[in-house]
Every structure is written in structure tokens, then in C-alpha cells.
């Protein structure tokens, strides 16, 4: 051992440490290293094959094991559709009244303009310490770091963390490093959506920094607040499951169940640009 160290070991360790330093500095200076970008591009077809194979396997497994549950879900959804159709009729009436009142008060309509880019989900999390997705669009399609990613139903999936040429990595709402301004409805309380390592395996996240007097209750909807203008407002994040006090008792936090079914996503939409007109 001593002989080995004297001859070669120290040199290999020094080279390893130097390379570690170079890669660390490179990562800090460049958003995506050229090699990582090239590997991402090269890996795209392999990821697609892996995704196709595993999706097919999962589909067969789900069909075999979840058929009964799916039938029940269809029945529940039919009821939900009927209820929503009724709510939609009421909402249409409210919309017309709202329009009429806006005209009376000469108020401008609040609207959101989003520029979307559709993308296929080609990969999943690569480490146990994060929750990420790899999507099939990158800088070549105008996707950039910090863009919000949503489902076709408008549910927030996450934020683009890294953008390569024809691929991007999206940190989902479960990722421990994510932090987004959020607002709960109907109470209107503001908080910060954060991923939590303890909740991540359960597919949940938390809404932190609620006041100790918070009146938030299970079932409340949580949307993006749009505070600071970095992310658009009004994107559905999830539903409150439980509300509790932090260990200090000075604040409360809520555990959220994300609206997007992150394990079953196949296609998402990247919000490349947005404008909120008040």
C-alpha cells in the first residue's frame, strides 16, 4: 500500500482533486457544461427508448393491477363532470355579470398572456436527493432556466433548472431546492411553496411561512402568487392536506398534495414568456 502510494496513488489522487476543482469551477461559471450539453443531446434517443419501454411496462402493470380502481375513478369523474357542468353554467352567468359591471365601472379586464412550448417528458429524477424531469425541448426552442412548466390542465409541474440544446431539466414542485411564492384560496394567505426531503417520497410538498394565526384548512387550493414577477400568478399548485405548527410554534405550515400527477406525466408545456395585464 505504502509502496503503491509512493509510486502512483498520490498522483492519481492529486489529478482527481484537480479535476474536481476544475469541474466545480466550470459548473459555477457555465450554466450547462459543454460536455453535459453534448451528453444530453446524445442521450436523447436513448432516453426516449428507455421512456417508451418503461412506460409500456408501467401501462401493462397498471392495467393488470389498477383496473378496478380505474373503473371507480371513471364513475367518480363522471359525477365530477356533472357537478362542474352545473358550476360552469353558474360561472357563465357570473362572468356575464362581471363583464357588465366592469363596463359600468370602466375597468380593464385582467388577463394572462402565456407563450407556451409543448415538450415530451423523456426522463425522470437521477438522484435520490432531488425530484426532476427531463423534457425534450431546450435552448434551441427558446426554453430557458427559470421557466415554469405546467400540464395541459394548467397545473404547475415545476421550474426549468437547466436548459441544454434540445433537452431541459425541470425541478418539480417536490424538489427540496424549489421555492415559489404561493397563495392559498379562499383565505388569500401568502406563503412559500417548498420541497421537503421527508415529504418528497410521499409525493407531497409544503407551504411554509404561514402566520401562527393562519386559518387555512385541509382542502384549500394553493396557486402561484406571482409575487416578484418571476413566475406567473394563478397556476394551480395543489391542495392542502394538513396544517400544523412549526416546532417553534411561531409559524404554521401546510402539507400539499400537488395537483399535477408527476409520476404519470408524458407531455408538459413550458411557459417561455408571460404577461399579466391588470
Amino acid at each position: 500500500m505504502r509502496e503503491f502510494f509512493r509510486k502512483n496513488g498520490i498522483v492519481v489522487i492529486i489529478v482527481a482533486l484537480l479535476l474536481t476543482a476544475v469541474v466545480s469551477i466550470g459548473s459555477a461559471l457555465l450554466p450547462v457544461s459543454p460536455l453535459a450539453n453534448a451528453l444530453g443531446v446524445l442521450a436523447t434517443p436513448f432516453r426516449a427508448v428507455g421512456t417508451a419501454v418503461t412506460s409500456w411496462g408501467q401501462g401493462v402493470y397498471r392495467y393488470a393491477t389498477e383496473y378496478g380502481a380505474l373503473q371507480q375513478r371513471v364513475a367518480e369523474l363522471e359525477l365530477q363532470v356533472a357537478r362542474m357542468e352545473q358550476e360552469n353554467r353558474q360561472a357563465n352567468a357570473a362572468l356575464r355579470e362581471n363583464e357588465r359591471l366592469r363596463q359600468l365601472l370602466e375597468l380593464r379586464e385582467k388577463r394572462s398572456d402565456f407563450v407556451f412550448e409543448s415538450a415530451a417528458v423523456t426522463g425522470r429524477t437521477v438522484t435520490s436527493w432531488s425530484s426532476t424531469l427531463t423534457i425534450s425541448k431546450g435552448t434551441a426552442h427558446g426554453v430557458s432556466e427559470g421557466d415554469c412548466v405546467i400540464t395541459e390542465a394548467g397545473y404547475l409541474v415545476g421550474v426549468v433548472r437547466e436548459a441544454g440544446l434540445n433537452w431541459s431539466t425541470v425541478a418539480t414542485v417536490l424538489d427540496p431546492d424549489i421555492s415559489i411564492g404561493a397563495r392559498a384560496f379562499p383565505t388569500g394567505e401568502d406563503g412559500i411553496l417548498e420541497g421537503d426531503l421527508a415529504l418528497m417520497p410521499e409525493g407531497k410538498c409544503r407551504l411554509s411561512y404561514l402566520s401562527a394565526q393562519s386559518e387555512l384548512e385541509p382542502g384549500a387550493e394553493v396557486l402561484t402568487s406571482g409575487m416578484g414577477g418571476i413566475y406567473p400568478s394563478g397556476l394551480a399548485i395543489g391542495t392542502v392536506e394538513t396544517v400544523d405548527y412549526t416546532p417553534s410554534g411561531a409559524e404554521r405550515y401546510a402539507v400539499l398534495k400537488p395537483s399535477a400527477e408527476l409520476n404519470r406525466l408524458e407531455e408538459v408545456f413550458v411557459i417561455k414568456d408571460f404577461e399579466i395585464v391588470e
Partner: protein
Amino acid sequence: MTNTDRTLPKWLTYSAAFFLCFFLERCILNRFPLWGALPMLAPLTAAAVGFLEGAFPGSVFGLAAGLFSALALGPGHARLIWCNTLIGLFCGATVNKAIGRTFHGYLLCAGGSLAFLEGLELLLRLFFDDQAAGPVLSMAGAEGLYSFLFSPLVYLLFWHIYRRFRSDLEF
């Protein structure tokens, strides 16, 4: 075939085995979490090569595998370079000094390598990221155990390559 003629194909085959493990880790196994954790196969490959080929080849292979992983996984994974180098180095060094080149010996090396990586992750998260001990400990434990389940498969793959080129030498 001379010894030198066989060296290149052997290391190319080792590299192909590493890429296979890397592909499995990144594209297939990452869809099947166990206890909320995902397995790591790259350190097991460095341990296998160190174990079978010795300390110097193991450390160089670990360095190459670590460099590739660090660059492919992106920011925050640079420590994989020196971690995998050390894994290859120590597995190769201990196999000659402390344990024999047996399957049990490899399991010991793989377990030690994973314990080293998870211990390091634990320390970094507790002392530098200021994260709560409970979740970090359970995730590190789950990741280590889940990865360890794949150590026999990785060993068999690399042992097969090792044996094939070694038996070629004997002719």
C-alpha cells in the same frame, strides 16, 4: 494475442459495462424508487474494477467513471470524481491486504464504498446545508441499501469480463 493486445479490448469492455450500468441507473431504474430512494451503480463499478484489477487500475477507472458521471449529472456532482477514485483505490488496496478476491470480499468492498458515499452525503447535508437529521438519515440509508441490492449484479458483470480476459491470457 499478446498481453498488450488484450489490454485495450479489456478496458473497452469494462467501459462498455460501465456505460450499461450508467444507462440503467439514469434511464430505467430511476423510474422505480424503493423507500423513496434511487440506486447508484457508478460507485459499484469503480469498486468492482478496483477489486478485480487492483488499486492503480481501480483508481484510474474510478477517476474516469467519476469524471463522466460528474459531467453528465451536472452541477453539484463534482465530488464524484475524487470519491470514485478513492473507492477504486481502496477496494484494490484492501483486496490484497485484508480480504481475498471472493464474492463476499466484493460485497464487503461495495458495502464499504456505499457507506463512505452516504456518510459523506450525510455530513455535507447536515453541516453545510443545515438539513434536518431524520429525513437525511433515512434517505441515505434507503439509497445505500437499495444500491447495495445491485452489487451482486454489478460484480457478476465485471467478474465475467475479468474472467474472460484472464482466461484468454492463460492460452
